[in-house]
């Protein structure tokens, strides 16, 4: 199943689950829903609830 990408509504940074987020120890293959609540946008610091799913 294709995992969806999510975009930060503040700075436009895109979370791509196939890449993960090495700066916060997020392994490639981690879906957005499984990111910890403490995870934030690596570029502007926005929390998870400020992201929108890309259609």
């Amino acid at each position: 199943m294709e995992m969806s990408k999510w975009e930060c509504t503040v700075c436009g940074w895109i979370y791509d689950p196939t890449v993960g987020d090495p700066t916060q120890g997020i392994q490639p293959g981690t879906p957005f829903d499984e990111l910890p609540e403490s995870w934030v946008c690596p570029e502007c610091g926005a929390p998870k609830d400020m992201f929108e799913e890309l259609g």
Partner: protein
Amino acid sequence: MRFLVAGGGVAGVTAAQRLRTAAPNAAVTLLDAESVPYYLRPGLIDVIAGRKTLSAITPFSRGWFRDHEIDYRLAASVTELDLIRRGVKLDSGDRFTYDRLLLALGAEAACPRFPGAPRAELFTLRSALDANEIVARAALSRHAVVVGGGWLGLETARALQTRGLRVAVVEREPRLLPRQLDDEGSAVLASVLGRFGIALHAGVAGLELVGRGPLDSVVLSTGERLPAELAVVAAGIRCRSTLPAQAGLDVARGVRVDAFVNTSDCSVFAAGDVAEWEGRVYGTVAAAREQGMVAAANMHERGSAEYRGTIPSNRLKVLGVDLVCAGDTQPEGGPLTEHRFSDREVGSYRKLVLYPDGRIAGSVALGAGAVEFGALVDRPEPVGDPEALLLG
């Protein structure tokens, strides 16, 4: 245990949140010099462009801090720091004492002196208040000059242009983003920005702000006159390190910290734009957040986390331009090798900087696919064929 965090930007807020989680019974106080709750500073560009309100870039309400039992004080500027009594005094006269203190005081916008300045139509951009003032002035202006061709200057220029102003950018160095781009990269970026109507003047040694009464133009040392009812200076940052220095802490450019982000006083830590680690002041959100996390861990349990530096990564947050610079992009000699691809016609530029063993030390990508290309810097394995990667 009383934890006191002085500074309400990303370093301070991150640390306060981490302290709250790590030490549920401790008192956590967060002192913020600004009068509005914590907002995401990079979002101010969209506020200037008129695309977002301040509330759209404010992630937590004051109620959120109350619910998490963080004593959050706004308009709370620290004016005195007493390392012996372990206390601070605010401009309101209030006093707080601490067992562990985090200095996350941030930085101010640097503003070089220009002939004809200061004046009411000349701004720097650092705070929400600055953004509001620039927006108010922009509404009365048709032309703007942005002084500084770095990240913030270019983003501000595009934001003002989005509002309908005619914008020129003036840079002292011979190229844009002088620390990240070489001449060719700068030339490609200049041609892309030129398509939006943003005029670029690089290699300008000096300028003067001119106008009887309000500002009406900026005159360059070349003699060229740029119409401007509004000017914004984006010339870098200056650490708010005066107060820590007066208190007796070891300060160079910023407050010097060790690998545990501990200052020269064992009860005082520093993180974010005010902190200097191994001679570096990062000035990025990522570094501020990482240092804030390390600070919280060590304030709670001494020696429990080490800071090892942050790979610099910058993305130009400008509508219609994809530019990502990551890692070491300007080695200027030494054992690193550089590989480039450039196409001014389509506005595409890529550069790879490689270690002798082929691992990626840094990259620059402008144009389509820039974000994916920039992410390559995290890849641990060596690059076999750099030319193929540049064209891929």
